[in-house]
């Protein structure tokens, strides 16, 4: 790997991060755009949850993670603290793997 590659990727990744902040900046957004942008975390985080739970690379895969994240969902529903949800998710997944 070359240093050029490392810096080029660093600059690109940072440019992406800055881009979104700059596009919105301090501007007053039209209400319709405001209503949409505020939904970004819900849409993307839900996507990350399903991707991390049900896939490996480009393959869909149902395994112990689904059980662990299912247990985490129950913990979140029961309003347990975030730390507990994380630990329950990981521990359940590890337990299912150990048994299987």
């Amino acid at each position: 790997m070359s240093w050029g590659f490392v810096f080029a990727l660093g600059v690109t990744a940072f440019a992406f991060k800055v881009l979104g902040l700059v596009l919105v900046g301090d501007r007053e957004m039209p209400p319709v755009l405001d209503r949409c942008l505020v939904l970004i975390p819900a849409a993307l985080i839900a996507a990350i949850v399903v991707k991390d739970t049900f896939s490996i690379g480009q393959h869909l895969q149902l395994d112990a993670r689904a059980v662990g994240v299912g247990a985490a969902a129950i913990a979140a529903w029961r309003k347990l603290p975030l730390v507990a949800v994380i630990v329950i998710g990981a521990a359940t997944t590890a337990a299912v793997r150990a048994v299987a």
Partner: protein
Amino acid sequence: MIPGGVSQLWRDERLRAVFAACVTLGFAVGVFAVSFGVTSVSAGASVGQTCVMSLLVFTGASQFSAVSVLGAGGSAASAFGGAALLAARNSVYGLAMAPHLKGRLGTRLVAAQLTIDESTAMAAAQDDEAHRVAAFWITGLSVYLFWNIGTLVGALLGSAIDPKVYGLDAALPAAFLAMLWPLLRERRPALSALIGAVVCVTLIPFTPVGVPILCAALGILVGVPTPAGPAVRP
């Protein structure tokens, strides 16, 4: 940045919970960073390059993708393309976070570097502005710290704990789910999340890695219709 300073932070129960969650999340992320360090060095990068990449790029999925492609003998161009595609979603997060990240240019540039999945999710899960801003910074800084320490450890030691052993590969989706949960109480974010999840899972087998999450942003179109207004006044 964090209103009221550290002493107030410890009196604020909700922020203490965010803080504890950040440390837990940071630990899980750190284990992935160790395995990134190992993967990177074994793909031919030096320890220095590996650490500088984590400091500068600071987007786990991109970094893993880049070193995996290079390690498998892929071209620099294809490694770069895939990594850039995975980094693109941070732009989308920036659109959502911009109204909460005011301040001087220097502060905003640091905020930009910390605009990633974890910080955006933790901020979104809070229900007032002060906690949103604090959660963004605490999460961003804690993940930055753990990510870079983990990278260094992996690059130097060259042997990783397999994140699968302790179920740590499920720790991250569990954390994201917990952060998503409070958003699901209202109809529009819930519908948005449902659309995002369905679009993502549908596209995973058919599109390059990174694209499904970008396309999940279609879910925000739920916000287009004008919400039913208050009752018409006489």
